[in-house]
């Protein structure tokens, strides 16, 4: 089983083949093209197979990274994906959107020498390789327990819980408010970063395992949690962070000012990028400003470019160093031609006589002392106001947890931030037989964290259901 150790440390991290910036800024196809089997094997060979792998400690779900790498080295991809899937049921998604540079890859021993293993890229390769095989090996399923479980929300947390519990023999139904399953993977992350066919594949997979997926069903409205508890033995709430923040500045309700959720949902879920081929109308704005510096902001600006904007820019109140977006995403955006207006804060939106956005008034910022987040606090520079002519502004400054379920479920406690109170280790909420996980508990975070929370909750739910008569 012991793979051959490389004799010499190889620090040459293999680049990811990508569409060129000139090409990709005009299409919605995936930007990163993925490793070939050859590159994946070369990359995996660089792995030192550490006795105490630090990368694993950097992974929220503790994937056996050296383990799957060793299979890739040998070209045994089937065993590699199997090992990977023991801990990660959404590898094709995580391989694409996980911030590996601040998780597993940040812990890699080769990082100090600037040559950390491209773990995410190999992960993605394995997942894509599996998808190309005609037959996917189905994991063994436990005998039916007769227990019924409802999962609210079909995002990463919900899919994980459902997949885990169905394998343990429980009867699982996912309830999704929108008409397509996948949650933020479907409505939020654009096609060019996470092709929708990959999300659909993951949903199909849990369906194949026996999970029932009910779309167009708003728990809290169509049926309350209390009513569902009459039918189901246990419930998992994974409704995500879906209430967009605005800045409370003048002019935010002008036409042409969007929440990132609206802009991206129109494009992704409603396929606005195909308009006028699609029914949901969208505006093709020429000058688009995106307020915020996270991945969602990058997604919005890059979508605007692809929709034909001649000027797509990021307006961010701190500097480049503080951008919360993955470095890869801000670099991709920059390469494609997104302009970055750093240390800039919008203070008002100014409209024309028909109620459409015409200009954004901004103020310049400078960095002061570090704040609670450890990042240097942006401070307004007096009398530095200026205006930028713009046709659209997309507000991508974050989301609160969706209040629909908490507001309609007595006894389900929330924090001051509106997140659900849940045990960190088990996901148990303050209501009996109700668990929760993902962004609804943590506030907006990452896909892998949501998945990890789903894993833990599934374990705890199973334990509870096994004891329950």
């Amino acid at each position: 089983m012991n793979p051959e150790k490389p004799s010499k440390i190889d620090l040459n991290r293999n680049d990811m083949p990508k569409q060129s910036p000139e090409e990709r800024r005009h299409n919605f196809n995936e930007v990163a093209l993925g490793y070939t089997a050859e590159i994946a094997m070369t990359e995996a060979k660089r792995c030192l197979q550490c006795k105490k792998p630090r990368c694993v400690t950097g992974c929220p779900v503790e994937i056996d990274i050296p383990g799957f790498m060793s299979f890739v080295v040998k070209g045994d991809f089937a065993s590699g994906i199997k090992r990977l899937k023991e801990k990660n049921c959404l590898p094709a998604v995580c391989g694409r959107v996980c911030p590996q540079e601040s998780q597993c890859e940040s812990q890699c021993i080769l990082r100090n020498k600037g040559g950390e293993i491209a773990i995410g890229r190999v992960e993605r390769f394995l997942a894509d390789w599996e998808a190309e095989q005609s037959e996917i090996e189905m994991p063994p399923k436990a005998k039916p327990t007769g227990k019924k479980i409802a999962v609210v929300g079909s995002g990463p947390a919900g899919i994980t819980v459902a997949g885990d519990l169905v394998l343990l023999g429980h009867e699982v139904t996912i309830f999704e408010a929108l008409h397509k399953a996948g949650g933020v993977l479907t409505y939020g992350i654009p096609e060019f970063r996470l092709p929708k066919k990959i999300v659909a594949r993951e949903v199909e997979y849990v369906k194949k395992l026996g999970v029932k997926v009910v779309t167009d069903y708003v728990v809290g409205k169509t049926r309350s949690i209390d009513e569902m508890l009459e039918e189901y033995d246990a419930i998992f709430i994974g409704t995500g962070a879906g209430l967009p923040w605005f800045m409370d500045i003048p002019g935010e309700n002008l036409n042409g000012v969007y929440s990132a959720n609206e802009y991206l949902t129109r494009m992704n879920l409603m396929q606005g990028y195909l308009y006028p081929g699609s029914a949901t109308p969208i505006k093709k704005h020429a000058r688009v400003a995106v307020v915020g510096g996270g991945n969602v902001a990058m997604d919005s600006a890059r979508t605007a470019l692809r929709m034909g904007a001649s000027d797509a820019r990021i307006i961010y109140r701190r500097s480049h160093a503080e951008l919360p977006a993955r470095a890869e995403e801000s670099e991709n955006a920059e390469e494609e031609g997104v302009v970055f207006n750093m240390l800039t804060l919008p203070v008002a939106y100014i409209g024309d006589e028909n109620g459409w956005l015409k200009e954004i008034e901004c103020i310049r910022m400078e960095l002061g002392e570090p704040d609670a987040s450890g990042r240097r606090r942006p401070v307004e520079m007096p009398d530095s106001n200026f205006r930028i002519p713009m046709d659209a502004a997309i507000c991508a400054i974050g989301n609160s947890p969706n209040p629909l379920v908490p507001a309609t479920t007595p006894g389900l406690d929330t924090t001051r931030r509106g997140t659900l109170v849940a045990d960190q280790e088990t996901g148990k909420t303050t209501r009996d037989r109700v668990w929760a996980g993902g962004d609804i508990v943590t506030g907006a975070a990452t896909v892998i964290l949501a998945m990890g929370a789903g894993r833990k909750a599934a374990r705890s739910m199973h334990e509870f259901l096994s004891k329950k008569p």
Partner: protein
Amino acid sequence: MNRVIKREMVVPNMHLLVVEAPEIAAKIRPGQFVILRAEEEGERIPLSVADWDEEQGTISIIFMEVGASTGTLACLKSGDTIPTCVGPLGNPTEISNFGTVMCVSGCYGIGSMYPVIKELKKAGNKVLTVLEARSSYLIYWLNRFIPLSERIFTITRDGSLGMKGHVNRITDIINGLASPPDMIIVNGCTFLMAHTSEITKSLGIKTIVNLNPIMIDGTGMCGVCRVTVGNKMKFACVDGPEFNGHEVDWKEFLARRKAYVDEETLYFRKSAPKPAVHKEGKCQS
């Protein structure tokens, strides 16, 4: 997937759609709405619910045929299915014994006002019903309102039924009463709701409107339905759809509702899958 039980034209361009939706029918209250998609890959459109039958497990919607999606809805036949019918969404109308309530409605709002009036009557209110339309032939469901209403007033632009003129004739109606109503509820087009609110503001009568902005998800996620009420940003889908009409920024609301008129027209002309070719109430060549 929801089965269509019935679809018929009630008055020109105004359709009744009865859809099988047992869970919604068991849950819905007056003032709430559903979101429909007329076909796969179709847009999501919010529509008020005009009636429901819990036993049959059906809900009824009155909608006006205005563009591509409603055009597709208008071509549905009994036995067809629609891919999405989700709800009930929004908060129900607040109903208690207010005393005398004047219910002003027009257009598709006549439909959604029906359950409101039914509940108001049940709660012991005296209901004064005001129906507004361009002409008498556009008024429907009058026979449903008669047994529920203390008095019924109609305003038609051409004077073919009741008072002649515009929504501003409401002033005359109120002035003609022994005492002004305790509350006014308005359902219908933006123009009707905005103008009624303007009139009743000067008269100091509490006025509730049922807003119908553009929506996508209807659960608070996208924020496209935001509206300024009392100088605060509200989401019509989760904070509404009913608001104090005197506090709504109507100019902004109207501008937001019209945001996609050009794009909708373009789609309707270029790509709409099937033009509305039903024959009821239309000239045939």
